[in-house]
């Protein structure tokens, strides 16, 4: 029995290590001196960071990623929260079918979504740019927001709202003064997940942005030509943005799988 238990623990540690170590290595080699990611590491340096901060496209890519991420989070947290509140008042079966349908874009390969959106935008004469990336990202961030907020809304205690209504508050006032403060942390958490998903996306961005660049499309261009640690440095920035926002989100929403 004890042997069984320790085998479980060993496998658990090995698998967790397998999950996390590649990400850890990307960050580690952003700080090394040599131009190749190899062991042993002789000395640490910040030269790759200086290189990317001096990269002429870096700043614009960074701002594009931030603008897209924040806009996507803003819009999808509004449409997603509204949908989650609406769905929570409907019968569970209707709600789960609607959720499953709205979540189809998450299941499809991003390549198929990207090219379908590209051909659609081009044929209706829409110019490609940051705005087309933003609306495209809504497709796969919105379902996440709905899922997270809906999970909170099904346990929502409507009797508080009823009390407010009995005491004379209009539905609107009850919504502003009671519903919003209660669900606010979950909505912020969901919005941060949307930021993480949006900033991380490469394929859909690549097809719908036209001529511009974001951090992932910049990093892809660099990756094709070389394996220099400056790629690791930009990668670390992307990871910092996505992982920190998702950690805060998980902490706020107490979402556990």
């Amino acid at each position, binding site marked *: 029995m004890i042997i069984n238990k320790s085998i479980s623990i060993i496998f*658990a540690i090995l698998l967790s290590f397998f999950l996390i170590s590649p990400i850890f290595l*990307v960050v580690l080699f952003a700080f090394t001196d040599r131009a190749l990611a190899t062991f042993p590491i002789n000395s640490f340096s910040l030269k790759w960071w200086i290189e990317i901060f001096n990269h002429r496209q870096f700043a614009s890519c960074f701002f594009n990623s931030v603008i897209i991420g924040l806009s996507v989070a803003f819009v999808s947290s509004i449409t997603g929260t509204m949908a989650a509140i*609406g769905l929570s008042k409907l019968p569970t079966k209707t709600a789960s079918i609607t959720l499953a349908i709205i979540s189809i874009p998450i299941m499809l390969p991003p390549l198929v979504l990207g090219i379908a959106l590209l*051909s659609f935008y081009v044929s209706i004469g829409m110019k490609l740019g940051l705005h087309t990336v933003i*609306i495209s990202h809504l497709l796969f961030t919105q379902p996440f927001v709905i899922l997270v907020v809906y999970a909170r809304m099904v346990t929502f205690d409507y009797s508080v709202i009823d009390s407010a209504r009995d005491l004379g508050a209009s539905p609107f006032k009850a919504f502003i003064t009671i519903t919003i403060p209660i669900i606010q942390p979950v909505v912020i958490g969901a919005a941060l997940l949307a930021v993480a998903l949006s900033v*991380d996306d490469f394929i859909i961005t690549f097809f719908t942005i036209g001529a511009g660049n974001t951090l992932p499309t910049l990093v892809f261009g660099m990756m094709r030509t070389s394996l220099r640690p400056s790629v690791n440095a930009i990668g670390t920035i*992307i990871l910092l943005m*996505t992982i920190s926002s998702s950690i805060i989100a998980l902490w706020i929403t107490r979402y556990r799988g």
Partner: protein
Amino acid sequence: MKNRSFLLVTPAIAVFSLLFVLPFIYFFLISLWKIKFFKLVRDFNLVNYEKAIFNYIEIFITTYSVSIPVAIITTVIGFYYSYLARFKTGKFGSLMIFIALITLFGGYLMKIYAWKTILGNEGIINSILIYFHIIKEPLSFLLYTKHGLVITFVHFLLPFSILPTYAAMRGVNEIELDSMKDLGAKFYHVHFMLFFQRCRTGVLASFVFCLLITSGDYITPYLIGGKITFIGNMIAPKFGQFFDWPGGSAMSFTMLVISISIILIVSFLFKLTDPK
């Protein structure tokens, strides 16, 4: 009351319809059209599908000979990981789920890039093995081979497999597991099958996601696969340097139909194994 609730869902449904349903119908229609003098011409024929199937059959075979094993391996490991986190590791279990969640949201491109630096001839694994004099020449079967491709895919997809299987296992408690044993499921495999069936939706969700995403990927084969070409690597350029939307669209739908057929077969097999 009910109507008002539906009203709240409308913006989300509008986004879904305008940016998913509509583009997809249009994208499907394109697969029936043709290109003439570098312009799309409306038409109605299945030539593009014929070409997609007959000209690219080998590439479809390669694609699925990697993505089916990837979907199975990932689901098995993900199931085991969830099982460990749920029943075997106590408090460490929630840390395991936390690790799975943060790797889920971090870095599609960076994970692929990480494996490129880990598996390469001058990569991390080879440099460690050479440094400790375990090998003299770098192991070349790691990068630009099927092995490397499978490892990268499994690593990238594992969190997506852990979450649904773990969610399914949360509904099963230890008492239930023990009572399955007590009620006569003495043989280990029966015991396991009963447990497995309880988690069926989660396992199926994991398999479906892994298969669809792997078969439709083109960045991982491009960066890790070397000479291995996926159907996605043929589709993507048709929307870039080679202007052939009808061809690319037909190939995409062929791919989706193959993936969905595999999923239907697998879910049918799942039902067959149900001991009930």
